[in-house]
């Protein structure tokens, strides 16, 4: 059915206005990051565009180090989650053993424990392990993930049991089947979960704030806070340049994987 023209126009007007409102803060930050400090302070429209803010952000702050740290931490968490979740999901779908269902409910129950509520002992554990200011301390606590296990379990369940049976007759062990059949077949879901894991790790705030005390392992989010608190001179252009650097990787990932992420999250949430 085609829409009447009037209705169409109404929709476009509403869409455009909403989009402007939603995107305004991001757009503003983006523009400001290219503006001279003078323009920002006088509140005028940009008279010239410059890369100075970016230069300054990288020269006055160890922004590169922050970025590297964030990439390392996010990739490690993502990989850890993928490995642990897929192993656990495999056990819940393809293996039959006593206590499996109870264990599954325990896994589900972990979703009810907010990390914030157990952050104090967690901090003490990391400290006692000597993991403060280390990649291990920033990543290992997040490897086990009930949501990921759940999401992959849903996906693994759609793999026909006959595939496993055929491999049993061929004489293939469980671990090899997991590696050579289940993982490739579930590629799409793994990518979805990977993107989700990367996004959330990249954007993590509370834990890196607690688990880092110096710039060697500090992630870019905490780095941004450092920039904001240390930059008292109203160098908003520099701060915005930093913020833009922080959001670009996640925005790109989001734009590329929006459809898959949406499908994956809805499935994980509602099935």
């Amino acid at each position, binding site marked *: 059915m085609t829409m009447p023209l009037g*209705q*169409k126009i109404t*929709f476009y007007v*509403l*869409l455009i206005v*909403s*989009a402007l409102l*939603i995107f305004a*803060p*991001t757009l*503003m930050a983006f523009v*400001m990051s290219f503006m001279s400090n003078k323009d*920002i*302070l006088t*509140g005028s429209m940009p008279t010239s565009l410059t890369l100075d803010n970016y230069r300054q952000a990288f020269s006055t702050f160890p922004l590169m180090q922050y970025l590297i740290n964030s990439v390392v931490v996010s990739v490690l968490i993502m990989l850890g989650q993928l490995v*642990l979740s897929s*192993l*656990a999901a495999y*056990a819940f779908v393809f*293996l039959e*053993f006593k206590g499996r269902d109870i264990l599954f409910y325990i*896994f589900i129950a*972990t*979703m009810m424990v*907010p990390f*914030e*509520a*157990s*952050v*104090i*002992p*967690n*901090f*003490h*554990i990391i400290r006692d392990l000597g993991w403060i200011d280390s990649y291990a301390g920033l990543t290992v606590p997040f490897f*086990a*993930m009930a949501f990921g296990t759940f999401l992959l379990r849903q996906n693994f369940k759609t793999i026909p049991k006959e595939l496993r049976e055929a491999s049993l007759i061929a004489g293939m062990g469980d671990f090899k089947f997991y590696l050579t059949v289940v993982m490739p077949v579930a590629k799409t879901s793994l990518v979805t979960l990977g993107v989700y894991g990367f*996004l959330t790790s990249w*954007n993590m*705030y*509370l834990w890196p704030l*607690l688990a880092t005390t110096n710039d060697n392992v500090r992630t870019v*989010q*905490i780095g941004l*806070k450092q920039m*904001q608190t240390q930059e008292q001179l109203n160098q908003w252009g520099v701060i*915005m340049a930093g*913020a833009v650097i*922080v*959001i670009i990787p*996640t*925005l790109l*990932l*989001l*734009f590329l994987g*929006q459809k898959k992420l949406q499908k994956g*999250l*809805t499935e994980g949430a*509602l*099935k």
Partner: protein
Amino acid sequence: MSTMSPATKPYEDMQLAFEAERRKTKTRNFIKGILFLLPSIILFSVFLFYPMMKTVYLSFFLTDASGATTVFVGLQNYIQLFTSSIFLKSFKSTFLFVLYIVPATIIISLFLAVLANEKLKGVGIFRTIFSSTMGISVAAASVFWLYLFNPTMGLLNEILGFLGMEGIGWLTDPAWALVAVSITTIWMNIGFTFLILLGGLQSIDQSLYESANIDGAGYFYKLRRITVPMLSPTLFFVLTVTIINAFQTFGQIDILTQGGPQNETNLIVYSIYREAFVNYQFGAASAQAVILFILILLMTALQFKFGEKKVHYQ
């Protein structure tokens, strides 16, 4: 069975052997299953179950600055929690905060999702823009809004000034600080909520609308009688997730207000953080963490109890 005939003997033997074999297989399967789960079990134990129990344990003690327990005080930490004006204010702010952001987030996101669900040319761009705030971290979003809320050069006060109104001390005025934090949070939440709601809308069977069109139903009639009811499970999921996220708010407080002014924005997680890592009162902080845990447990239980039943499987 003393008169067992010799002929049945080998059969009985075989059955015994089978039984032993079956037990062996069971044990093997159990070990295999546990091996696959072991990494997760270990990490959950170390970084989730043990800390959770430790939190409950700590909440009954006073501690020194390193977190070691010193004096057992029983429920004293909890009693103090409910008598101290600062803690009570923190609870009040937290609930107010939930009240501010949850309905607003859902209504705005639903509005956007309904708009973006229309089959219009170029609607993909709008979907991308609406979901964009999901890719913006707490730190970055807070920095954006820190500038927008800036009393002298922030955009918001400039707009107010342009309209002939007096500027607002968004982050410094006790009457406005929580509102400012809420606005930031709503903006941040929109991306995720929008994406989930859009997914929910897209999974509604198109033939429902087609048959309604044949019956000559109008736009708002369809919205009210088909879209919202069919979307109810998704809405319910979004509702609980938004509430749970609201309880867990931390980053925007840390950057925007540090809990101030006058503890107006000292939401529960920030309060835990300050109590534990600034004041080193791990006992009192743990008691608050336990309360937070119970609140979220209730919300999750609610989600499981009512969510499960209402879910319409595609």
